[in-house]
């Protein structure tokens, strides 16, 4: 039985059950205006006689406004029945490892998802303040510049913003790679993406063996607009399911500026009054009500979180756009990807000076706090020095050493698109760098080798964690690493620890 046949049967069943019917009066695809259905309510699902399905998005004295979920045209005069229920999607452990559509079905044709435990409405109320917890656990992204300078916490909502094709998706995927390794449920939401881009991400997860901790919720740009609009809400509903099971969730929404554009299209078609940049008046609300569902929660004494990283595209580095500023005000900070840094060869091209983290720093240990403080102060100095020598000033020893260290820090932060480093390795590497014992040309090599040793060698891992755990702050760590740095370097270069 095809899905259309199932929906046709639903139509018949709901007419018999509710004894109500409407008739299609006007169609502005995807908006359909229906006369009748006296009991219809907002966000209720309706079924068309032809097997199409839609959702009530507006009610006025004369018509029920329905958003159609299908690309097939609805016919004028067609009968419509209401279900009496809002849109629900199937959720359960069976979703892990799957690639699903916004309606909760597999993106692969004829694939049935097993392990479904319940059906949840996609529009749920955010949990109240008595279920909220202070954000106090750090979230590792595996990206050095973020973990060291713009730290994130579990339950934080951090906007990832920047021009197109300069590494925003790469960064969020690196974060997924790291978090999935740590056992977090990671949900990647591709809003109006190309199908082959979604396939590529799926293959990336397969390659790194993290499929079992990830879910991809995707809508292609060729999908019905209604599906694209629903995509982030479906992903958030799945995230809430795993949060209620006591698991930490990382939710990526890639990207919300595209989502806003599709919502604008729907609003203009449904004749809502356009506002700034032709966006409707409730554009802030649709994103605020979505992101308010993320956070750090305490459910029946168990703490679990939904960390949300929404992505937003900017045009020519302009972060003062309508949607961008809306999202900035909703989230707890933003990571700004700078096209100038990208052109200068920095990977990831994150501009530390224009990035903000509002709650991430409170999750840091004293050592990470120390690293952050030292690095921030140094980068400010380095930036000032670079601007100073730009005017052809004489380069003395002090300036030279600042510039040298700046290049080394850049080397430390540079990493490939699939490289991820755990925080312990980042701290030890930075300490070695700060001590001046790491030669610039070997930083990249050492990073990779140290991470490999940390992953595979139990002894080395213990040595590194002991070193960090036994230090009360960064200065103590500096002293301890200074004492053992020869051992560490000889190990990295192929010796023994």
């Amino acid at each position, binding site marked *: 039985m095809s899905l259309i046949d199932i929906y046709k049967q639903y139509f018949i069943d709901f*007419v*018999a059950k509710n*004894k*109500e*019917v*409407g*008739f299609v009066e006007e169609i502005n695809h995807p908006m359909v205006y229906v*006369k*009748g*259905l*006296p*009991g219809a309510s907002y966000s209720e699902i309706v079924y068309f006689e032809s097997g199409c399905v839609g959702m009530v998005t507006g009610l006025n004295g004369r018509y029920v406004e329905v958003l159609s979920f299908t690309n097939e045209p609805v016919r004028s005069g067609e009968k419509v029945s209401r279900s009496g229920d809002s849109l629900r999607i199937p959720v359960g452990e069976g979703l892990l490892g799957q690639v699903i559509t916004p309606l909760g079905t597999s993106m692969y044709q004829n694939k049935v998802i097993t392990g479904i435990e319940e059906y949840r409405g996609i529009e749920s109320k955010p949990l109240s303040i008595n279920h909220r917890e202070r954000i106090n656990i750090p979230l590792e992204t595996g990206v050095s510049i973020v973990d060291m300078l713009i730290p994130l916490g579990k339950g934080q909502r951090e906007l990832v913003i920047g021009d197109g094709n300069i590494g925003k998706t790469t960064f969020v995927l690196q974060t997924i790679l790291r978090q999935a390794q740590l056992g977090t449920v990671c949900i990647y939401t591709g809003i109006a993406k190309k199908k082959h881009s979604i396939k590529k991400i799926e293959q990336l997860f397969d390659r790194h063996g993290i499929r079992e901790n990830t879910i991809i919720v995707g809508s292609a740009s060729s999908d019905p607009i209604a599906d694209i609009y629903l995509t982030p809400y479906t992903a958030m509903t799945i995230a809430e399911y795993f949060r209620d099971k006591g698991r930490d969730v990382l939710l990526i929404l890639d990207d919300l500026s595209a989502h806003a554009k599709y919502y604008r299209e729907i609003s203009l078609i449904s004749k809502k009054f356009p506002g700034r940049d032709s966006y409707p008046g409730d554009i802030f609300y649709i994103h605020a009500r979505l992101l308010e569902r993320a956070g750090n929660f305490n459910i029946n004494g168990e703490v679990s979180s939904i960390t949300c990283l929404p992505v937003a595209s900017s045009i020519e580095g302009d972060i003062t756009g309508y949607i961008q500023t809306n999202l900035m005000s909703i989230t707890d900070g933003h990571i700004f990807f700078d096209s100038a840094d990208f052109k200068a060869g920095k990977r990831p091209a994150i501009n530390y000076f224009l990035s903000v983290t509002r709650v991430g720093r409170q999750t840091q240990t004293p050592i990470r706090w120390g690293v952050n403080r030292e690095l921030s102060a140094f980068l400010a100095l380095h930036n000032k020095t670079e601007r100073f020598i730009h005017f052809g000033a004489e380069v003395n020893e002090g300036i030279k050493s600042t510039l040298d260290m700046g290049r080394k820090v850049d080397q430390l932060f540079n990493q490939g698109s699939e490289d991820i480093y755990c925080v312990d390795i980042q701290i030890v590497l930075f300490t070695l760098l700060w001590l001046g014992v790491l030669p610039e040309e070997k930083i990249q090599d050492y990073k990779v080798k140290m991470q490999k040793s940390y992953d595979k060698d139990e002894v080395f891992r213990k040595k590194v964690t002991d070193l960090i755990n036994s230090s009360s702050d960064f200065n103590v760590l500096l002293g301890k690493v200074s004492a053992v740095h020869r051992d560490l370097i000889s190990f990295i270069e192929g010796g023994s620890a």
Partner: protein
Amino acid sequence: MAELRKTKQKIKEDAEQIVFNSLKTKRNANQFILLSGALLRRSGEMDIAKVLTDVFGEIRPSWMEDLIKNVPGLQTGILSDSDINILKAIRHRINDAIEVKVDMSFEPSEYFIDSVINIMKDVLKGANKGSYNVDLIVDVNVKEDFEPGAIFYVNGHVIDLRVRNKVINYLYSQDVVNRYL
């Protein structure tokens, strides 16, 4: 003067009511919209017979008789302001009328349609506590493979009067199986 105005108004309303009542079905209402549109687009003296032939061909619908009787301009060939007002008012009433859709397997008789309108008017007046002047238009959808009986759709509500359903309901409600078999 005021008395005369009142009488004119009454005549207009009566004419409106008679013509509207003669329409009854959606098919007739659509024909009326077509004809009145053609008439309202013209001005001055016109050849009514030619207009009617243009719109309907040789076979005139039955409700034309009432229309011609109550809109004097259709006899003289010159539509007065009062005639135009009557046509416009009827068009307006058609737009605002409640549509009663009926699915059934055969073309119903005039008597059936009259009965449907009268019963539905009573039901809707009852539902609105009698304070609501209800205009109804019946839209019959004939499906040859439809089972015996009919389904009515009024104001979004479904009234399923198919014989099969009635029989099943009877069998269940009277507990026929346990009582007689």
